[in-house]
Protein backbone atom coordinates (compact mmCIF):
# COMPACT_ATOMS: atom_id res chain seq x y z
CA UNK A 1 0.00 0.00 0.00
CA UNK A 2 2.88 2.33 0.84
CA UNK A 3 4.52 2.05 -2.57
CA UNK A 4 1.16 2.46 -4.33
CA UNK A 5 0.57 5.71 -2.42
CA UNK A 6 4.08 6.84 -3.32
CA UNK A 7 3.54 6.00 -7.02
CA UNK A 8 0.13 7.71 -7.10
CA UNK A 9 1.55 10.81 -5.38
CA UNK A 10 4.37 10.92 -7.92
CA UNK A 11 1.89 10.81 -10.81
CA UNK A 12 -0.11 13.59 -9.15
CA UNK A 13 2.97 15.79 -8.71
CA UNK A 14 4.09 15.24 -12.32
CA UNK A 15 0.61 16.28 -13.50
CA UNK A 16 0.94 19.51 -11.48
CA UNK A 17 4.30 20.15 -13.13
CA UNK A 18 2.78 19.93 -16.62
CA UNK A 19 -0.18 22.12 -15.77
CA UNK A 20 -3.69 22.05 -17.26
CA UNK A 21 -2.59 21.50 -20.90
CA UNK A 22 -4.52 18.29 -21.68
CA UNK A 23 -2.55 17.59 -24.89
CA UNK A 24 0.79 17.85 -23.08
CA UNK A 25 -0.56 15.70 -20.24
CA UNK A 26 -1.61 12.96 -22.67
CA UNK A 27 1.71 13.12 -24.51
CA UNK A 28 3.73 12.65 -21.33
CA UNK A 29 1.44 10.17 -19.57
CA UNK A 30 3.45 7.08 -20.59
CA UNK A 31 6.72 8.61 -19.45
CA UNK A 32 5.34 9.70 -16.11
CA UNK A 33 3.71 6.33 -15.48
CA UNK A 34 7.06 4.58 -15.90
CA UNK A 35 8.97 7.19 -13.91
CA UNK A 36 6.49 6.79 -11.04
CA UNK A 37 6.87 3.03 -11.29
CA UNK A 38 10.67 3.24 -11.38
CA UNK A 39 10.85 5.53 -8.35
CA UNK A 40 8.38 3.43 -6.38
CA UNK A 41 10.25 0.26 -7.37
CA UNK A 42 13.43 1.43 -5.63
CA UNK A 43 11.49 1.55 -2.36
CA UNK A 44 10.11 -1.96 -2.64
CA UNK A 45 13.31 -3.45 -4.10
CA UNK A 46 15.48 -1.91 -1.39
CA UNK A 47 13.36 -3.64 1.24
CA UNK A 48 13.15 -6.97 -0.54
CA UNK A 49 16.20 -8.46 1.26
CA UNK A 50 15.63 -6.76 4.61
CA UNK A 51 14.26 -9.90 6.28
CA UNK A 52 17.05 -12.04 4.88
CA UNK A 53 19.72 -9.78 6.33
CA UNK A 54 18.35 -9.35 9.88
CA UNK A 55 19.73 -12.63 11.22
CA UNK A 56 21.62 -13.66 8.08
CA UNK A 57 18.67 -15.83 7.04
CA UNK A 58 19.91 -15.72 3.44
CA UNK A 59 23.24 -17.21 4.48
CA UNK A 60 21.32 -19.84 6.42
CA UNK A 61 19.40 -20.84 3.30
CA UNK A 62 22.56 -20.97 1.20
CA UNK A 63 24.22 -23.24 3.77
CA UNK A 64 21.28 -25.68 3.86
CA UNK A 65 22.22 -25.83 0.92
CA UNK A 66 19.68 -24.03 -1.22
CA UNK A 67 20.57 -23.13 -4.80
CA UNK A 68 21.51 -19.45 -5.06
CA UNK A 69 19.91 -19.39 -8.49
CA UNK A 70 16.60 -20.71 -7.14
CA UNK A 71 16.66 -18.11 -4.35
CA UNK A 72 17.32 -15.35 -6.89
CA UNK A 73 14.53 -16.38 -9.21
CA UNK A 74 12.14 -16.74 -6.27
CA UNK A 75 12.90 -13.20 -5.11
CA UNK A 76 12.89 -11.76 -8.62
CA UNK A 77 9.51 -13.35 -9.45
CA UNK A 78 8.05 -11.98 -6.20
CA UNK A 79 9.38 -8.52 -7.03
CA UNK A 80 8.09 -8.83 -10.59
CA UNK A 81 4.57 -9.68 -9.42
CA UNK A 82 4.65 -6.79 -6.96
CA UNK A 83 5.81 -4.27 -9.58
CA UNK A 84 3.39 -5.56 -12.23
CA UNK A 85 0.49 -5.19 -9.79
CA UNK A 86 1.70 -1.72 -8.86
CA UNK A 87 1.97 -0.75 -12.54
CA UNK A 88 -1.53 -2.05 -13.24
CA UNK A 89 -2.91 -0.21 -10.20
CA UNK A 90 -1.32 3.07 -11.33
CA UNK A 91 -2.91 2.91 -14.80
CA UNK A 92 -6.37 4.09 -13.64
CA UNK A 93 -4.70 6.97 -11.77
CA UNK A 94 -2.87 7.89 -14.98
CA UNK A 95 -6.11 7.72 -16.98
CA UNK A 96 -7.84 10.07 -14.56
CA UNK A 97 -5.01 12.55 -14.06
CA UNK A 98 -3.69 12.67 -17.64
CA UNK A 99 -6.84 11.85 -19.63
CA UNK A 100 -4.73 9.12 -21.21
CA UNK A 101 -6.84 6.04 -21.70
CA UNK A 102 -6.43 3.23 -24.20
CA UNK A 103 -8.80 0.56 -25.38
CA UNK A 104 -5.94 -1.86 -25.90
CA UNK A 105 -5.86 -2.87 -22.25
CA UNK A 106 -4.48 -6.33 -22.90
CA UNK A 107 -1.51 -4.93 -24.78
CA UNK A 108 -0.91 -2.33 -22.07
CA UNK A 109 -0.84 -5.11 -19.46
CA UNK A 110 1.63 -6.95 -21.69
CA UNK A 111 3.91 -3.90 -21.86
CA UNK A 112 3.69 -3.49 -18.08
CA UNK A 113 4.59 -7.16 -17.60
CA UNK A 114 7.59 -6.92 -19.94
CA UNK A 115 8.76 -3.59 -18.54
CA UNK A 116 8.48 -4.64 -14.92
CA UNK A 117 10.29 -7.89 -15.76
CA UNK A 118 13.14 -5.74 -17.07
CA UNK A 119 13.14 -3.70 -13.85
CA UNK A 120 12.72 -6.48 -11.31
CA UNK A 121 15.54 -8.77 -12.50
CA UNK A 122 18.41 -6.25 -12.21
CA UNK A 123 16.64 -4.58 -9.28
CA UNK A 124 16.68 -7.83 -7.31
CA UNK A 125 20.35 -8.39 -8.08
CA UNK A 126 21.37 -4.87 -7.02
CA UNK A 127 19.08 -5.00 -3.98
CA UNK A 128 20.99 -8.06 -2.79
CA UNK A 129 24.27 -6.18 -3.30
CA UNK A 130 23.17 -3.10 -1.40
CA UNK A 131 21.05 -4.82 1.26
CA UNK A 132 23.76 -4.57 3.91
CA UNK A 133 24.86 -1.05 2.99
CA UNK A 134 23.89 1.71 5.37
CA UNK A 135 22.78 4.03 2.55
CA UNK A 136 20.98 1.36 0.53
CA UNK A 137 18.04 3.64 -0.32
CA UNK A 138 20.50 5.95 -2.08
CA UNK A 139 22.90 3.36 -3.41
CA UNK A 140 20.30 1.18 -5.12
CA UNK A 141 18.96 3.88 -7.49
CA UNK A 142 22.51 5.01 -8.28
CA UNK A 143 23.38 1.51 -9.44
CA UNK A 144 20.04 0.55 -10.94
CA UNK A 145 18.96 3.58 -12.93
CA UNK A 146 21.81 3.63 -15.48
CA UNK A 147 21.28 -0.07 -16.15
CA UNK A 148 17.54 0.16 -16.76
CA UNK A 149 17.56 3.25 -19.02
CA UNK A 150 17.04 1.11 -22.16
CA UNK A 151 14.13 -0.71 -20.47
CA UNK A 152 12.64 2.61 -19.41
CA UNK A 153 12.93 4.11 -22.91
CA UNK A 154 11.36 1.08 -24.58
CA UNK A 155 8.57 0.85 -21.99
CA UNK A 156 7.75 4.57 -22.28
CA UNK A 157 7.72 4.39 -26.07
CA UNK A 158 5.49 1.29 -26.12
CA UNK A 159 3.07 2.78 -23.56
CA UNK A 160 2.90 6.09 -25.42
CA UNK A 161 2.12 4.26 -28.68
CA UNK A 162 -0.80 2.57 -26.95
CA UNK A 163 -2.12 5.86 -25.56
CA UNK A 164 -1.48 8.17 -28.51
CA UNK A 165 -2.01 5.71 -31.36
CA UNK A 166 0.34 3.61 -33.44
CA UNK A 167 -0.10 4.44 -37.15
CA UNK A 168 3.35 3.04 -38.09
CA UNK A 169 2.79 -0.23 -36.19
CA UNK A 170 5.83 0.32 -33.97
CA UNK A 171 4.49 -1.36 -30.86
CA UNK A 172 5.73 -4.81 -31.85
CA UNK A 173 9.45 -3.90 -32.26
CA UNK A 174 9.45 -1.90 -29.01
CA UNK A 175 7.79 -4.77 -27.18
CA UNK A 176 10.33 -7.18 -28.62
CA UNK A 177 13.12 -4.91 -27.44
CA UNK A 178 11.58 -4.90 -23.96
CA UNK A 179 11.34 -8.68 -24.06
CA UNK A 180 14.98 -8.98 -25.15
CA UNK A 181 16.16 -6.78 -22.27
CA UNK A 182 14.07 -8.81 -19.84
CA UNK A 183 15.56 -12.09 -21.08
CA UNK A 184 19.12 -10.72 -20.82
CA UNK A 185 18.59 -9.31 -17.33
CA UNK A 186 16.93 -12.48 -16.02
CA UNK A 187 19.65 -14.70 -17.45
CA UNK A 188 22.49 -12.52 -16.13
CA UNK A 189 20.82 -12.14 -12.73
CA UNK A 190 20.59 -15.91 -12.29
CA UNK A 191 24.24 -16.31 -13.26
CA UNK A 192 25.59 -13.51 -11.07
CA UNK A 193 23.50 -13.76 -7.91
CA UNK A 194 25.56 -16.56 -6.38
CA UNK A 195 28.74 -14.50 -6.76
CA UNK A 196 27.06 -11.44 -5.26
CA UNK A 197 25.71 -13.06 -2.11
CA UNK A 198 28.51 -15.53 -1.43
CA UNK A 199 31.70 -14.35 0.28
Amino acid at each position, binding site marked *: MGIFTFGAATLLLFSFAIGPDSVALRQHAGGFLWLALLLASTLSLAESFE*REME*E*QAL*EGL*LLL*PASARALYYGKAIANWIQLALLGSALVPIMVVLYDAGTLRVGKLVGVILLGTAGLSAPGTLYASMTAQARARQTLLPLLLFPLVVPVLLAAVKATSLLILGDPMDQLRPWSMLLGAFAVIHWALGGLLFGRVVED
Partner: protein
Amino acid sequence: MIAVSAAGLYRRYGRRWALVDVGFEVPEGELVMITGRNGSGKSTLLRVLATAIRADRGTVRILGVDVRRERERARRGLALLGHRTHLYEPLTALENLAVAARFLGGDPGRKGLLARLEEVGLADRGDDAVQTFSAGMRQRLALARVLQQNARVVLLDEPYGHLDPSGFALVDRLLRRLRGQGATVLMATHLLLRGRALCERGLVLEAGRLVFAGATADMPEPAGADGAGFAEGA
Protein backbone atom coordinates in the same frame (compact mmCIF):
# COMPACT_ATOMS: atom_id res chain seq x y z
CA MET B 1 38.03 -41.36 7.73
CA ILE B 2 39.03 -37.73 8.18
CA ALA B 3 35.84 -35.68 8.51
CA VAL B 4 37.39 -32.21 8.57
CA SER B 5 40.76 -31.33 7.17
CA ALA B 6 42.21 -27.82 7.03
CA ALA B 7 45.64 -26.93 5.70
CA GLY B 8 47.43 -23.59 5.53
CA LEU B 9 44.32 -21.50 6.15
CA TYR B 10 44.69 -17.74 5.97
CA ARG B 11 41.87 -15.25 6.22
CA ARG B 12 42.00 -11.51 6.73
CA TYR B 13 39.54 -8.68 7.30
CA GLY B 14 41.04 -5.55 5.81
CA ARG B 15 44.61 -5.39 7.08
CA ARG B 16 44.08 -7.68 10.07
CA TRP B 17 44.77 -11.38 9.70
CA ALA B 18 42.08 -13.41 11.48
CA LEU B 19 43.61 -16.78 10.57
CA VAL B 20 47.29 -17.44 9.95
CA ASP B 21 48.49 -20.78 8.62
CA VAL B 22 45.89 -22.85 10.48
CA GLY B 23 45.92 -26.56 9.76
CA PHE B 24 44.51 -29.65 11.51
CA GLU B 25 42.58 -32.84 10.89
CA VAL B 26 39.55 -34.21 12.73
CA PRO B 27 38.63 -37.90 12.37
CA GLU B 28 34.97 -38.74 11.85
CA GLY B 29 32.90 -39.04 15.03
CA GLU B 30 35.11 -36.88 17.25
CA LEU B 31 33.99 -33.96 19.38
CA VAL B 32 36.49 -31.13 19.25
CA MET B 33 36.44 -27.93 21.26
CA ILE B 34 37.97 -24.76 19.89
CA THR B 35 38.93 -22.14 22.39
CA GLY B 36 40.91 -18.94 22.63
CA ARG B 37 40.44 -15.35 23.65
CA ASN B 38 37.90 -13.04 22.05
CA GLY B 39 39.08 -12.17 18.57
CA SER B 40 41.46 -15.12 18.36
CA GLY B 41 39.77 -16.41 15.18
CA LYS B 42 37.42 -19.12 16.48
CA SER B 43 34.32 -17.85 14.71
CA THR B 44 36.23 -17.09 11.52
CA LEU B 45 37.64 -20.62 11.51
CA LEU B 46 34.17 -22.15 11.93
CA ARG B 47 32.74 -19.91 9.22
CA VAL B 48 35.52 -20.87 6.82
CA LEU B 49 34.94 -24.57 7.57
CA ALA B 50 31.19 -24.07 7.09
CA THR B 51 31.79 -22.41 3.68
CA ALA B 52 30.02 -19.26 4.91
CA ILE B 53 33.19 -17.33 4.02
CA ARG B 54 36.19 -18.24 1.89
CA ALA B 55 39.74 -18.57 3.10
CA ASP B 56 42.18 -16.24 1.36
CA ARG B 57 44.61 -19.14 1.15
CA GLY B 58 44.62 -22.78 2.13
CA THR B 59 42.37 -25.77 1.65
CA VAL B 60 39.43 -27.21 3.55
CA ARG B 61 38.04 -30.67 2.99
CA ILE B 62 34.77 -31.76 4.55
CA LEU B 63 34.22 -35.52 4.38
CA GLY B 64 36.83 -35.59 1.63
CA VAL B 65 35.16 -32.88 -0.45
CA ASP B 66 37.24 -29.81 -1.34
CA VAL B 67 34.97 -26.88 -0.36
CA ARG B 68 36.56 -24.54 -2.88
CA ARG B 69 35.81 -26.83 -5.80
CA GLU B 70 32.51 -28.39 -4.69
CA ARG B 71 30.95 -25.94 -2.29
CA GLU B 72 27.37 -27.10 -2.61
CA ARG B 73 28.32 -30.79 -2.22
CA ALA B 74 30.38 -30.02 0.87
CA ARG B 75 27.44 -28.12 2.36
CA ARG B 76 25.21 -31.18 2.20
CA GLY B 77 27.27 -32.73 4.98
CA LEU B 78 27.53 -29.59 7.13
CA ALA B 79 25.48 -27.68 9.67
CA LEU B 80 26.51 -24.42 11.32
CA LEU B 81 25.25 -22.72 14.45
CA GLY B 82 26.69 -19.24 14.18
CA HIS B 83 26.51 -16.02 16.17
CA ARG B 84 23.59 -15.00 13.96
CA THR B 85 20.70 -17.42 14.15
CA HIS B 86 19.83 -17.64 10.40
CA LEU B 87 16.16 -17.31 11.41
CA TYR B 88 13.39 -15.25 9.84
CA GLU B 89 12.26 -12.91 12.60
CA PRO B 90 8.63 -12.35 11.47
CA LEU B 91 7.99 -16.07 10.96
CA THR B 92 6.93 -18.37 13.78
CA ALA B 93 9.24 -21.05 15.15
CA LEU B 94 7.31 -23.73 13.25
CA GLU B 95 7.39 -21.73 10.02
CA ASN B 96 11.15 -21.29 10.31
CA LEU B 97 11.61 -25.03 10.67
CA ALA B 98 9.14 -25.65 7.83
CA VAL B 99 11.15 -23.39 5.48
CA ALA B 100 14.32 -25.31 6.29
CA ALA B 101 12.51 -28.65 5.95
CA ARG B 102 11.31 -27.75 2.47
CA PHE B 103 14.84 -26.89 1.32
CA LEU B 104 16.20 -30.05 2.95
CA GLY B 105 13.54 -32.17 1.26
CA GLY B 106 12.27 -33.33 4.64
CA ASP B 107 8.81 -33.51 6.16
CA PRO B 108 7.44 -29.99 6.76
CA GLY B 109 4.44 -31.43 8.63
CA ARG B 110 3.41 -29.80 11.91
CA LYS B 111 3.70 -32.98 13.98
CA GLY B 112 7.31 -33.69 13.05
CA LEU B 113 8.34 -30.07 13.49
CA LEU B 114 6.63 -29.87 16.90
CA ALA B 115 8.61 -32.93 17.97
CA ARG B 116 11.77 -31.08 16.91
CA LEU B 117 10.73 -28.07 19.00
CA GLU B 118 9.98 -30.39 21.92
CA GLU B 119 13.62 -31.49 21.85
CA VAL B 120 14.76 -27.95 22.53
CA GLY B 121 11.99 -27.04 24.97
CA LEU B 122 10.02 -24.76 22.66
CA ALA B 123 6.98 -26.90 21.82
CA ASP B 124 4.60 -24.48 23.55
CA ARG B 125 5.93 -21.51 21.56
CA GLY B 126 5.76 -23.05 18.09
CA ASP B 127 3.15 -20.60 16.79
CA ASP B 128 4.85 -17.48 18.15
CA ALA B 129 6.90 -15.22 15.91
CA VAL B 130 10.65 -15.39 16.48
CA GLN B 131 10.75 -11.63 17.02
CA THR B 132 8.89 -12.20 20.31
CA PHE B 133 11.56 -14.65 21.54
CA SER B 134 14.31 -13.95 24.04
CA ALA B 135 17.93 -14.46 22.95
CA GLY B 136 18.05 -17.83 24.70
CA MET B 137 14.89 -19.03 22.96
CA ARG B 138 16.31 -17.98 19.61
CA GLN B 139 19.42 -19.97 20.41
CA ARG B 140 17.30 -23.03 21.20
CA LEU B 141 15.40 -22.65 17.92
CA ALA B 142 18.67 -22.22 16.02
CA LEU B 143 19.87 -25.46 17.63
CA ALA B 144 16.67 -27.20 16.51
CA ARG B 145 17.33 -26.01 12.97
CA VAL B 146 20.89 -27.37 13.12
CA LEU B 147 19.61 -30.75 14.35
CA GLN B 148 17.05 -30.73 11.55
CA GLN B 149 19.87 -30.96 9.01
CA ASN B 150 21.08 -34.36 10.27
CA ALA B 151 24.55 -33.29 9.19
CA ARG B 152 27.62 -35.51 9.57
CA VAL B 153 29.75 -32.49 10.47
CA VAL B 154 28.26 -30.03 12.96
CA LEU B 155 29.94 -26.70 13.67
CA LEU B 156 28.77 -24.90 16.79
CA ASP B 157 29.89 -21.38 17.62
CA GLU B 158 29.24 -20.70 21.31
CA PRO B 159 26.29 -23.12 21.55
CA TYR B 160 25.84 -22.24 25.24
CA GLY B 161 25.50 -18.56 24.47
CA HIS B 162 22.40 -16.83 25.95
CA LEU B 163 21.17 -20.12 27.47
CA ASP B 164 19.92 -20.67 31.02
CA PRO B 165 21.12 -23.64 33.13
CA SER B 166 18.50 -25.98 31.60
CA GLY B 167 19.75 -24.82 28.20
CA PHE B 168 23.31 -25.77 29.20
CA ALA B 169 22.07 -29.26 30.06
CA LEU B 170 20.19 -29.36 26.76
CA VAL B 171 23.34 -28.61 24.78
CA ASP B 172 25.25 -31.26 26.76
CA ARG B 173 22.55 -33.80 25.88
CA LEU B 174 22.54 -32.82 22.24
CA LEU B 175 26.32 -33.12 22.03
CA ARG B 176 26.20 -36.59 23.53
CA ARG B 177 23.44 -37.53 21.13
CA LEU B 178 25.42 -36.26 18.15
CA ARG B 179 28.40 -38.27 19.33
CA GLY B 180 26.15 -41.34 19.62
CA GLN B 181 24.99 -40.81 16.04
CA GLY B 182 28.59 -40.70 14.82
CA ALA B 183 28.55 -37.02 13.88
CA THR B 184 31.74 -34.96 14.00
CA VAL B 185 31.35 -31.83 16.10
CA LEU B 186 33.60 -28.78 16.29
CA MET B 187 32.49 -26.44 19.03
CA ALA B 188 33.90 -23.00 19.82
CA THR B 189 33.45 -22.25 23.50
CA HIS B 190 34.94 -20.42 26.44
CA LEU B 191 33.55 -23.01 28.87
CA LEU B 192 36.77 -24.91 29.47
CA LEU B 193 35.60 -27.39 32.08
CA ARG B 194 32.52 -28.31 30.10
CA GLY B 195 34.42 -28.56 26.85
CA ARG B 196 37.07 -30.77 28.43
CA ALA B 197 34.42 -33.04 29.89
CA LEU B 198 32.57 -33.46 26.60
CA CYS B 199 35.26 -33.31 23.92
CA GLU B 200 38.15 -35.64 23.19
CA ARG B 201 40.31 -33.10 21.46
CA GLY B 202 40.89 -29.39 21.63
CA LEU B 203 42.26 -26.63 19.46
CA VAL B 204 43.55 -23.38 20.94
CA LEU B 205 43.84 -20.26 18.82
CA GLU B 206 45.81 -17.14 19.63
CA ALA B 207 45.71 -14.14 17.35
CA GLY B 208 44.62 -16.31 14.45
CA ARG B 209 47.34 -18.93 14.94
CA LEU B 210 46.75 -22.47 16.07
CA VAL B 211 48.92 -22.83 19.17
CA PHE B 212 47.63 -26.16 20.40
CA ALA B 213 45.99 -29.22 18.85
CA GLY B 214 45.67 -32.37 20.91
CA ALA B 215 43.85 -34.13 23.71
CA THR B 216 41.72 -31.82 25.85
CA ALA B 217 43.42 -33.27 28.96
CA ASP B 218 46.68 -31.69 27.80
CA MET B 219 45.13 -28.46 26.63
CA PRO B 220 46.61 -25.28 28.08
CA GLU B 221 44.24 -22.58 29.29
CA PRO B 222 44.05 -19.63 26.93
CA ALA B 223 46.02 -16.59 28.03
CA GLY B 224 44.10 -14.62 30.65
CA ALA B 225 41.78 -17.51 31.55
CA ASP B 226 40.73 -17.97 35.15
CA GLY B 227 37.85 -19.58 36.96
CA ALA B 228 35.87 -16.38 37.28
CA GLY B 229 36.25 -15.51 33.61
CA PHE B 230 34.96 -18.84 32.36
CA ALA B 231 31.77 -19.51 34.28
CA GLU B 232 30.42 -22.95 33.55
CA GLY B 233 26.74 -22.47 34.23
CA ALA B 234 24.80 -25.03 36.21
